């Protein structure tokens, strides 16, 4: 008798493919990890799936649902391995994609690089037409021009076409007619319209988004089709869903049409998992902190919901430099990425200052302690010297760490030029990397009108739990939560997410002069579009919850705040309410209000989702019983030097256990460090909770 109760989340990352299997009857979760096969990620994925099913004695037919996050889209853009794309634009504007925003993202580097446009110049074709700022047709579309442009694109053998016309977000009629012509003239070649994929003002960002979607479409289409076939060959007959950048799930069909919405698929899943733990631990205001080998990612959650943004910068030429990438108008979970990870390299600069990152030793050659040829001391090396990591229990003991080599490297390269001993230099590396993350976090929260000290830190990733204590102290945070399954958080998030869909339309108007008929029509249109997508994902129409918002600002300002709109039919009677909501949100961010200025709305947004049906997961790796205390070692803490620390094995800690810090709690993929004056407890779901008792 076949059952459909098993669900699987798969996060295909750059290094590892993480898998989580949940039995819907018991909510028991088990994990799998596979090295990602770069030539064909679906191979490692299917292999990992098979292994996980075998280990749990489950048949393919028992699996009802597979949810997938992929780095395919982001990698295709970074590595420039997408399709040959043609772009059709308004006459006079084909260089928009190349000219960009005309700024230097790096003020002092005379030789900085700019990202190359996704569509090369000869494949950018212009047609006579022009729509004005109010949507009026100034120059009618010349269909002969479209035919000629199409002929050129055919000669070049383009595999996909993007169309982006001036003010096409305001009046899509010309773009739609071009699409119809392209269907006749270039049958089988996928077409992306800017007015479909990103119907918002700003021609450069919109053209980038349309071109980006076209650029990855053939690659994603092929990958997903092969995946579908591979799964059905093995007997799987359930549903496959994909994680969108904004944290919702979508179907294969929609993903193939709008693949650009998968660009932040993996990181979004991590934030969704943080939302799950936020609700599980009843901690509504949370900063999720994911620190791995190369980067740290922070995401702000208010009331258990991760922050969202409507733009994202893809494929930065300099990974951590804002402005060095391709700006896209796509809904994403709003998180920041900092060049700080276990592999970040520490150096003393020409002025005798200690600098850490953003260069990383990555996995090859890796930190000095891996003994794989790394010569430059890293954050992980310092953490080893400071006693936070055990030389014998890294990755559960699979990798022996070479402490002597680290002492030598830190001594020669850091301690000597700084005029310090080895442990002070290592402590310096640890503090500086924490400070780098703290200042980026402070800035990120300040921009959103928040004070970090009112938040709880949710730490995961290999290095997150090692650095959470220092980071929390620097931010004035009093509580840290380290969830179980910290090594497969994104995959977990896939199983706690629900189908959702974000759509937007531009209609710029002074709020007091808004034509509410237009707005209600836009929302009706968006509701139709969103419901159709969700119904296709297997959601019943009654379940759908709609949230409407508008990006608003004071007339004359340049920074919009998304403001949730009241329910029901919108009209002039709700004007005061809507305005008050915006002014409240503004005052929260900037600590003051502006009087006597009108408010304008620019973009109207609709989020369609279904209520979460999340269950409380039980982890196979938690609460295994036995004596959790495994020994003691000396670890370094600011202001105390090296002090004795009890060391525990996480999987053996019982729910309800309490420990007085300082303490070190080890698990296979990470180590939790809690300094003096902390109180540690294990809650009923096996989360480790650290309360920092005083901040000195």
């Amino acid at each position, binding site marked *: 008798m076949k059952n459909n109760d098993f669900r699987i989340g798969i996060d295909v990352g750059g290094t590892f493919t993480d898998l989580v299997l949940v039995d819907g009857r018991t909510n028991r979760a088990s994990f799998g990890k596979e090295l990602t096969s770069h030539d064909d990620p679906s191979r490692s994925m299917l292999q990992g799936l098979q292994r996980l099913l075998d280990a749990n004695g489950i048949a393919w037919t028992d699996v009802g649902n597979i949810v997938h996050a992929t780095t395919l889209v982001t990698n295709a853009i970074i590595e420039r391995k997408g399709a040959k794309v043609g772009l059709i634009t308004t006459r*006079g504007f084909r260089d928009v994609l190349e000219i960009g925003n005309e700024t*230097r993202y790096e003020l002092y580097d005379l030789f900085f690089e700019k990202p190359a446009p996704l569509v090369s110049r000869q494949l950018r074709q212009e047609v*006579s037409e022009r729509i004005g700022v109010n949507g009026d047709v100034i120059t009618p579309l010349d269909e002969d021009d479209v035919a000629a442009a199409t002929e050129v694109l055919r000669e070049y053998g383009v595999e996909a076409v993007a169309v982006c016309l001036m003010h096409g977000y305001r009046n899509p009629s010309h773009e739609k007619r071009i699409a119809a012509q392209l269907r006749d003239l270039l049958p089988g070649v996928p077409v992306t319209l800017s007015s479909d994929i990103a119907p918002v*003002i700003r021609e*450069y960002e919109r053209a980038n988004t349309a071109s980006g979607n076209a650029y990855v479409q053939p690659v994603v289409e092929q990958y997903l089709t092969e995946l579908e076939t591979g799964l059905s060959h093995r007997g799987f007959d359930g549903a496959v869903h994909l994680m969108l950048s904004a944290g919702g799930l979508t179907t294969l069909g929609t993903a193939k049409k709008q693949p650009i919405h998968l660009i932040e698929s993996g990181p979004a899943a991590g934030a969704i998992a943080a939302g799950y733990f936020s609700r599980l631990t009843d901690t509504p205001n949370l900063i999720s902190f994911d620190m791995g080998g190369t980067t740290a990612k922070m995401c702000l959650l208010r009331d258990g919901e991760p922050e969202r943004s409507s733009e994202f910068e893809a494929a930065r030429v300099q990974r951590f430099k804002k402005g060095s990438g391709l700006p896209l108008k796509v809904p994403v979970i709003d998180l920041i990425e900092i060049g700080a990870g276990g592999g970040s390299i520490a150096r003393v600069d*020409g002025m005798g200052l200690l600098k850490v990152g953003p260069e990383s030793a990555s996995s090859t050659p890796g930190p000095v302690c891996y003994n794989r040829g790394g010569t430059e001391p890293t954050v992980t090396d310092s953490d080893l010297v400071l006693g936070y990591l055990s030389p014998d229990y890294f990755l559960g003991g699979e990798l022996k760490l070479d402490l002597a080599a680290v002492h030598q490297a830190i001594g020669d390269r850091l301690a000597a030029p700084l005029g310090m001993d080895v442990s002070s230099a290592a402590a310096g590396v640890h503090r500086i990397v924490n400070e780098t993350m703290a*200042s980026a976090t402070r800035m990120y929260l300040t921009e959103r009108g928040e004070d970090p000290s009112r938040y709880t830190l949710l730490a995961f990733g290999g290095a997150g739990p090692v650095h959470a204590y220092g980071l929390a102290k620097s931010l004035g945070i009093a509580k840290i939560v380290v969830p179980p399954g910290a090594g497969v958080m994104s995959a977990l998030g896939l199983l706690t997410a629900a189908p959702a869909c974000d759509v937007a339309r531009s209609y710029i108007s002074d709020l007091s002069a808004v034509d509410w008929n237009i707005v209600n029509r836009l929302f009706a249109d968006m509701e139709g579009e969103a419901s159709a997508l969700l119904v296709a994902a297997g959601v019943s129409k009654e379940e759908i919850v709609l949230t409407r918002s508008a990006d608003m600002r004071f007339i004359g*300002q340049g920074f919009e705040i998304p403001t949730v709109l009241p329910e029901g039919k919108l009209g002039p009677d709700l004007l005061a309410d809507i305005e008050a909501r915006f002014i409240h949100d503004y005052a929260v961010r900037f600590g003051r209000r502006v009087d006597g200025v009108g408010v304008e709305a620019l973009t109207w947004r609709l989020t369609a989702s279904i209520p979460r049906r999340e269950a409380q997961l039980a982890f196979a790796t938690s609460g295994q019983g036995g004596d959790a205390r495994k020994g003691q070692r000396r670890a370094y803490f600011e202001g105390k030097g090296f002090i004795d620390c009890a060391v525990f094995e996480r999987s053996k800690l019982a729910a309800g256990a309490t420990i007085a810090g300082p303490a070190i709690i080890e698990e296979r993929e990470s180590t939790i460090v809690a300094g003096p004056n902390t109180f540690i407890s294990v809650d009923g779901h096996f989360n480790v909770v650290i309360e920092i008792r005083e901040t000195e």
Partner: protein
Amino acid sequence: MSLTSNSAINGVNLEILWSRLISIADEAATALRRTAFSTIVRESNDFGVTILDENAAAVAENTIGVPAFLGVLPRAVKSLLQEIPIDEWEEGDCIVTNDPWMGAGHLPDLVMASPIFLQGQLVGFSATVAHLPDIGGVIFSADCRDFFEEGTRILPTKFMAAGNENPEVARFIRGNVRLPDMVLRDIYAQVTAHRVVAQGVQKFLGKSGFSKLSSISQALHQRAEMAMRAAIAKMPDGEYRSVVTADGYDDKQTEIHCCVRIEGSNLTVDYTGTSPQIDRGLNSVFNYTYAYTVYPLKCVLDPVTPHNDGSYRSVTVNAPLGSILNPHFPAPCNARQLTGQLLAGAIYKCLAQIVPDRIVAESGTAPTLRAVFNGADDSGKRFSQMLMCSGGMGASAHRDGHACTPFPTNTGSGSIEAFEGLAPLLVRRKELVCGSGGEGKHRGGLGQEVEIEVIGSAPVNMSLMADRIVNPAEGLQGGGTGQPVRVSLASGRTLHPKARTTLLPGDRLTLRYGDGGGFGNPAERSEGNIRSDIKNGYATTNRMQPRDRSDEKR
């Protein structure tokens, strides 16, 4: 966690203290940008934030600033202290001035300074500068003969006194500007930034255990000075000279004479021989000259170390009093960018003689080409918009110049769709100019052409501030000259490049932003680069010729 617990300042805690102070300045800059109303602040980032110790020495500045303000704020705060004695500065004061000689070189830039107190003791200052959307007088233009035509001058005065608005000052400003609401709201954006700095510094001192900012500023200054000196010392001693010619006003071209003198770890830039000041708004007040002298030097010598008062102790700038680079009060100076932004080219022409691989050739947007449009739309709503596009950047030993990229300034163009929403103007085309860019082993960056049509039924006032029409951007090391700037009307009516004029309904204006200069011998250009130029239509050897394509098929 007390940062002084390690007793002495060392390479670890100094790095932490420094980055904390910079992040306070950055937080304040973010607050300023997001609460400002004018596009010039919020889109073009035309503002700066500096944190100073209680001796008015800069300790940290915001990261992504505009070069025009480098080193200006510490000089401005020192001037303010001369005008208003320190015992008259109270907690919550915001003292303002837009005097070009004390501040940033022209009236639209408003400098604001506040003292920071901790437990009743002066511990430092915050200072900001921002380009106001209007300052009265004529609109932003180059052609005034008299400084007093250029706008309203505010001598140092308290805009905020002990945390409260000084109503008379606010009223005076309101009465003298075209956009009183926007101007006052932008000034309040600066006030917000000052509050962020004060709170940040107080918290910083509380946490670090220092009693005031000067307790660490000396160490910060030393490190910044050391880095700069080390870089200068690596360059050969000697005197290196250059001359850059600008179009000037009408038939009066101006010349910048530049001599870079290196002696050990000291560097002097001497502008002796530069043209005398002129009776149009092209004069670059010394503070602006200083900023645009140290900025290009910093890019070459030490692009990495954050700025503070120590950064330029090794650099001396001499500009003869009474010259266009150091005019006497009250010389007109509104369009001082047309002179000051040429300095990078003059300095790099000198440095090309010793470190050719560390500089760039002249840029098409040094100085910027600006058109300011002002009037009322058909519904009677007033507008004032400036198009902030750029020409090509100069080439270097390492690469072709970037197309349409500002240098030495860094103001972005923004979206044309957004621009069209703010003024009754239609942009007919905005495209790269092919077959341009100074020739060279590395080609100068391509400029662009932008064609703008007046689509309202009322005439539009326009002020043009253009140079490099007669004297385009020069190449270096054998590289060629870029194509010049051009401004023209489809009607054939000639335009004065540095004057105010009226555009009529239906008029079509074409602005041709200049190219960057090339670098190195054109014969050494690689096959790959030549092929790519032809493939992409950057070069004219293929069938694609520049043509006015917006006119066909209408």
